[in-house]
């Protein structure tokens, strides 16, 4: 089982929703589509499902062209962000409906429904109507209906976005388990980098209708190929500062200087953009050669175990994620420290010039 998109594009009323995209999704893989709202995640999924037809390009399933095929004949399953069930049917009938359409024998339907319901912990609710269930249960019912027919391609379009925090965590843990059990190709759209990392597998980052990078999730996270990918795959978005390499020295912002070592040593002299993630900014000098930056505090957001500091440095807005509760007055000037090993360098066109040192030494788990 493979799903292949060959130069698939889609435009509606002259506006391009999906730029030419080629992807190959293999059997038994978890594929995350990561991107902000309106990046084209849903559009891409609808093309994969066959709900929309590409303006150009082909969709192949197991090597066969299915571009123009009706969605009914595709053998896909999809779960939406909204909890979509058939309100008039009981949970049991909801889960059974795809199998009944396929005219499976009653005994087999019953066995499959009960098995799937058990896996998704819906057994006590089988007799109820979907609208009598909690949001999490409704979404589990939708998941069960998607999984029961054993579709080769399961598309999950931000399935957890409408759930409250607790239910979301609960279901997020279950999805990899469900995925393991099904053996299908899973495609999971999300806006949250954290979710992509939790799910693992491979990640495609999307930005304005383009796949900016695709690869194993941790690799994309550690070695984003360009600034856009780095921004998309960081929450809060990656911080940037102007940088320069001259005579073996890396000069950041207003003059913090360090030796251009490791990956930076091979770079030509010139202008670059430095990028670093919020969690790599520190309030104290973390290492021998850490670089210090005087920043102005704009806002502090305290979440409990962590504090988000919104900072301003040389006209750039930075966000730092630091441990503990930090009470800092707005307008105060503080020193922020960065270990050079946590700095990515991007060239003038935004392409990754050198990954951060830590991303090369620590091998992806």
């Amino acid at each position, binding site marked *: 089982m493979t799903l292949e998109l060959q130069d698939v594009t889609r435009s509606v009323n002259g506006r391009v929703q999906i730029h030419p995209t080629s992807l190959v999704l293999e059997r038994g893989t978890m594929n995350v589509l990561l991107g902000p709202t309106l990046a084209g995640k849903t559009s891409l999924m609808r093309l994969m499902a066959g709900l929309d037809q590409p303006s150009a390009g082909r969709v192949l399933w197991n090597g066969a062209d299915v571009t123009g095929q009706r969605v009914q004949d595709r053998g896909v399953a*999809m779960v939406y962000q909204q909890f979509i069930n058939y309100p*008039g049917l009981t949970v049991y009938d909801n889960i059974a409906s795809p199998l009944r359409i396929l005219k499976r024998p009653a005994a087999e339907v019953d066995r499959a429904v009960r098995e799937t319901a058990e896996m998704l912990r819906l057994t006590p609710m089988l007799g109820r109507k979907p609208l009598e269930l909690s949001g999490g249960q409704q979404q589990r019912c939708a998941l069960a209906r998607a999984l029961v027919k054993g579709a080769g391609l399961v598309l999950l379009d931000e399935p957890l976005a409408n759930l409250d925090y607790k239910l979301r965590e609960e279901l997020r843990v279950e999805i990899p388990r469900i995925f393991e059990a099904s053996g299908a190709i899973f495609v999971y759209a999300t806006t949250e980098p954290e979710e992509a990392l939790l799910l693992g597998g491979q990640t495609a980052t999307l930005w304005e209708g383009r796949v900016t990078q695709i690869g194993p999730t941790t690799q994309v996270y550690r070695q984003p190929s360009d600034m856009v990918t780095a921004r998309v795959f960081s929450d809060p978005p990656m911080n940037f500062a102007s940088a320069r390499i001259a005579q073996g020295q890396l000069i950041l912002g207003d003059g913090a200087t360090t030796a251009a070592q490791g990956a930076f040593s091979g770079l030509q002299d010139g202008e670059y953009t430095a990028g670093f993630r919020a969690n790599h900014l520190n309030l104290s000098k973390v290492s021998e050669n850490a670089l210090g930056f005087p920043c102005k505090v704009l806002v502090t957001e305290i979440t409990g175990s962590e504090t988000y500091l919104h900072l301003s440095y040389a006209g750039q807005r930075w966000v730092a994620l630091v441990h503990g509760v930090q009470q800092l007055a707005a307008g105060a000037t503080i020193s922020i420290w960065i270990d050079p090993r946590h700095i990515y360098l991007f060239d003038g066109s935004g392409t990754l010039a050198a990954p951060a040192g830590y991303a090369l030494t620590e091998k992806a788990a």
Partner: protein
Amino acid sequence: MKRYSSALVMAAYLIFLLVPIYWLLNMSLKTNAEITSTFSLWPQNFTLRNYEVILTDPSWYMGYVNSIIYVVLNTVISITVALPAAYAFSRYSFMGDKHLFFWLLTNRMAPPAVFALPFFQLYSSVGLFDTHIAVALAHCLFNVPLAVWILEGFMRGVPKEIDETAYIDGYSFPRFFIRIFMPLIASGIGVAAFFCFMFSWVELLLSRTLTAVDAKPIAAIMTRTVSASGMDWGVLAAAGVLTILPGALVIWFVRNYIAKGFALGRV
């Protein structure tokens, strides 16, 4: 004090509404002599003769049968036609869809009298004059737009994702529409059917113009009861009471749907 005054207003309003109906009922249970001679608040010589006349004389009771036939026909046709139309309006955008939707509504703005003459000529020329289907079709002119309008509101409330989920699950369109979609908008169908029924039931001008004998509606019969022997007041009143009944029955059965329809749809 305030409580009493609001109760008073309510009572006055109810009396205002109900007195004519009570008077109709009162008259229908009196003899003609009593109606024309004395003023009494309730029947002095209680009689069911008026009802007996109507229920035994085919020229009377066939009026009810005719009315019910074409009203039911019209309701079935209107809903059957309006369902796919409303679905198209709620789900697809096509060239001129908004104009078409508005144009449908404008059909309701013209008084039926405007259409009486062309309908009479056209139906006569194709041999449909004095048939139930003729009246049913004529009433579609008003009822189809209304039904489309009501149903579209209900259908819009059903997320499009349900349609897509059904297709992904393997439902064909007709099967999805009948098995999944129609139950979801059942109350909308109920409301639309109710309004079609009511408009067709009370409409007089077209139904009278398009019929003569075989399909003559009760409302037309009622207005033609001035016979040589003068007005038969009692029978006329009894006919009026019997004409109110079907409407009242329909309202009773769909009252919960109507309440929901007023709240959800666009009635």
